[in-house]
């Protein structure tokens, strides 16, 4: 049986706006993936440990409070510390275009800004799966 793709959707930091994260979780479920949602107020450490325990293929981070430049790379670092740098990290939320190159440099492989259709996220996941 083909391996199921497992995705962790997480909200790092104090931002409590979870409408987008919940939508993405549901839509990815409808696309056939197994989705684990952590809820709000997660620390980079708890996100990384969850990702490792659940042996996910992807971690999707949602953040609307502007703290992405600090918190997204922190999650990538924590994953590295746990020996899980093969887990692909992507992000979404209120993230200015000009911050994206730096995030990518720090290990966030894709950033989906407001207005992006969910299809783009699914295409990204499938693209990565094809290459693995």
């Amino acid at each position, binding site marked *: 049986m083909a391996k199921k793709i497992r995705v962790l959707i997480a909200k790092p930091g104090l931002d409590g706006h979870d409408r987008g994260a919940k939508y993405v979780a549901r839509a990815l479920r409808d696309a056939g993936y197994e989705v684990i949602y952590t809820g709000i107020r997660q620390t980079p450490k708890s996100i990384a440990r969850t990702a490792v325990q659940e*042996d996910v293929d992807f971690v999707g981070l949602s953040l609307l409070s502007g703290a992405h430049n600090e918190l997204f790379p922190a999650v990538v670092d924590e994953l590295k510390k746990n020996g899980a740098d093969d887990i692909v990290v992507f992000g979404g939320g209120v993230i200015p275009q000009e911050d994206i190159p730096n995030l990518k440099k720090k290990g966030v492989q894709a950033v989906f800004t407001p207005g992006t259709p969910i299809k783009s996220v699914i295409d990204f996941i499938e693209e990565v799966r094809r290459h693995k």
Partner: protein
Amino acid sequence: MSFSEKVTQGDIRSIARALSIVENNDPEKEELIDKIHKFCGNAVVWGVTGPPGAGKSSLVDHIITRLRKAGKKVGIIAVDPSSPFSGGAILGDRLRMQSHAVDEGVFIRSMASRGHLGGVSEATGDAVKVLDAAGYDVIILETIGVGQTEIDVMQIADVIMLVLVPGLGDEIQALKAGIMEIGDIFVVNKSDKHGADKVRAEIEYMLSLKQDNETGEKKPVIMTSALKDEGIDELVESMDFFIKKISDTGDLERRRKKRIELEIRKILSRKVEEAVHYNLNLENKMKKWVSSVFGKENSVYHIVNSQFGKIIKEQKAK
């Protein structure tokens, strides 16, 4: 260190990987179980089941806290149904246990009930072995008790907690009969809500109708409120007491042996079936057989016996 050694040494990444291997029925699965099985047997498996909305995960969250305080390492396997439409799943049980995410002594794994080859019970059984071999003292297996699959999964547990809530009303009767049978300890959660006592009364009535063959004692019914963190100590004590009781009477050993037997039979069935299908080249021949029956040339039994007969002859010849 080999992979299986890393698992038994408690390396989180390796444990997680091992769980994936057994879940996906990867080729390395059997070898892995071969290597780790002698490290199994230390863990006690608690089953937690009940209808959706009963607050199982919230209860488990509190139970984990108590067990950690008692110095136990806890593994949790939370099984949720996959969508029959997309095959995907949202695994939301661990949400309510996330406060334990950074505790080194807690391992939480979410599993979807997806069409496992061999059924989700085989995968879950192996997952329990992995956590057992990795050194967890208590393994909590959480499922939604609504179907036969979930009942099968629960058979893996040494002690089974059935969680109900007020507001289900007559649905207790509607609950799959098998679930009421397998419960060792009954919990009425959300006990502060209206109707909680009625639920307790209904459970006690149903229990009184059955004879407790094993111990002749009454099965406990415990009132809890996960929201208020009430009744949890009593619940944990009750589970511990039950385990001790069945250990002392030799019942635990009996249950485990019975479980192993069931497991062997199941795997055997599966493998035999796989082998026969392969041997008969089943998938390719099926269309022809169906046409032959539909066209009234042969009966279904004739088809099966002639094909099956072939195998028996071949085996005897070998």
